[in-house]
């Protein structure tokens, strides 16, 4: 084939793909600035006639969006901070510290990856109810404080640290905790960023478990609030699009800023499934 035609076809298809991928998101932003009812007029408009912040004002003033945004930020940040610490320590131990049964325990954890999380949800609900955690932030945070995937990711990465570094410190009399904090953690920085953004995005976007565990509005995270609002306000497309923007924008910006780390983590995590 003529290379110029081939080039036109390939780039044409890429443009078409990008339009399909981005159009719903751009449409969302555009509709969120329309006046009430404007999107439901015919022919369907692409751009607002008079752009307005009214929908956002309505969301934050009357629909409690500020609260939900804070809830989401709080829950996702707490999950990210705690699970990062726990996964980091466990992943390092599996990679670099000798102990009896290490390989078998690790293989056992990997084996547990085949169990879908939903199997645990019903008893987990009863357990958290017993602990008095249902309908608190803890109900969402506590079960997410460690993940097998995170431990696996850290272990893969930490295996590349040369043993001599730790040995030298041990000979100098440094304790294991000090070795971990002063020598290992600085070397794990790239995987920490990767794991942090993965965890934050997953926590922010999570739906099924928060839907079950958060029974009262005051603790709703954005996805739960949005799902519930969208059942109440079926007709208000402009308002719902503003809500979608508030929900999506933070994670989209975070991804754009740290894209490189995110994509690296995606590949690292899929090496061995």
């Amino acid at each position, binding site marked *: 084939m003529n*290379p110029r035609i081939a*080039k036109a076809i390939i*780039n044409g298809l*890429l443009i078409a*793909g*990008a339009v399909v*991928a981005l159009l*719903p*998101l751009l*449409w*969302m932003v555009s509709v969120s600035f329309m006046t009430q009812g404007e999107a*439901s*007029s*015919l022919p369907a408009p692409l751009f607002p006639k008079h752009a307005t912040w009214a929908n956002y004002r309505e969301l934050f003033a009357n629909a409690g969006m500020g609260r939900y945004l804070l809830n989401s930020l709080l829950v996702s940040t707490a999950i990210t901070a705690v699970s990062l*610490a*726990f*996964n980091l320590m*466990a992943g390092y*131990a599996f990679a670099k*510290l*000798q*102990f009896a049964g290490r390989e078998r325990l690790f293989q056992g954890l990997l084996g547990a990856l*085949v*169990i*879908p999380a*939903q*199997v645990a*949800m*019903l*008893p*987990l609900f*009863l*357990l958290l109810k017993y602990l008095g955690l249902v309908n608190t932030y803890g109900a969402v945070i*506590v079960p997410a*404080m*460690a993940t*097998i995937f995170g431990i696996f990711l850290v272990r893969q990465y930490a295996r590349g640290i040369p043993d001599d570094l730790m040995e030298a410190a041990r000979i100098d009399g440094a304790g*294991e*905790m000090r070795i*971990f904090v002063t020598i290992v953690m600085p070397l794990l920085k790239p995987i920490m960023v990767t794991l942090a953004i993965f965890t934050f*995005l997953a926590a922010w*976007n999570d*739906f099924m478990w928060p839907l*079950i565990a958060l029974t009262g509005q005051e603790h709703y995270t954005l*996805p*739960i609030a*949005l*799902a519930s609002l969208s059942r109440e306000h079926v007709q208000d497309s402009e308002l719902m*699009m503003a809500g*979608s923007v508030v*929900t999506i924008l933070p*994670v*989209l910006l975070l*991804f754009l800023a740290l*894209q490189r780390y*995110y*994509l690296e983590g*995606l590949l690292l995590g*899929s090496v061995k*499934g």
Partner: protein
Amino acid sequence: MNTSRAAWLFLAPALIVLGMFFLLPVLAALILSLTDYDLYALADIRNLRFVGLENYWTLLHRPLFWSALGHTVYFVAVGVPLSLIASLGAAMLLNSPLARCKPFFRTALFAPVVTTVVAVAVIWRYLFNTKYGLVNSVLDGIGVAPIDWLGDPHWSMPTIILFAVWKNFGYNMIIFMAGLQAIPADLYEAARIDGASALRQFQHITLPMLKPTMVMVSILTVSGYFQLFAEPYVMTEGGPLQSTTSVLYLMYEEGFKWWNLGSASAVAFLLFIIMFAVTAVMLRLSRRGGEV
């Protein structure tokens, strides 16, 4: 110095969390599925009875379970191949030396992956609205009669599949791109010298070299798609006429709407067994294919 003791201290927090909030509940779910745990038992545990396999037996005789399983299998069987084709196609386009502005296109195509399912499902509900939706007005422009995407039981699942493909293809696209880049360029060089067409190069070099990636990606995508829940919850509430009620949707309603936790646990375990069996067969088939 005792690294073994240190190791257990480092492991303890993560293992306690995983043990208490994942492994223990999984075991408890197995036991729960053998009881008649319901609203009465929730109020007073003395109402709990052990019923053996009765929950499973009842489920296997319930038309709703089979239709939910049917919808889920439909979603997996159509959605996974479409997703993989979209991912591979996009990866090959991005990997072509003729493609321009690669970082931009890669980011644009990947963007739907990081968005929140609930929020984009809400967008799609409006885009696919029968009367005011953009999709139908575009179709109207080329002379296609309006389609009741989410209100017609024949169209509801295809619409959800389209949504899932749009939302997810970017993830596997990145993995396929890495797989494509790992194929040595001299293979294509040699094929070109032998006069092999682009199609034959794809058939005889790209596909076989990509097979390990393909197997892994298919298995991961199949197990992900079996867990269909948020899309029907937001877009159709399982309807119309329960045409988008998935197995997990059934589990959610059974467990957290009707509080039949025993029966809902049986649903969860059946789903797990089915997923395990399907992915095990896929793995077995791919290994046998490899030895030939």
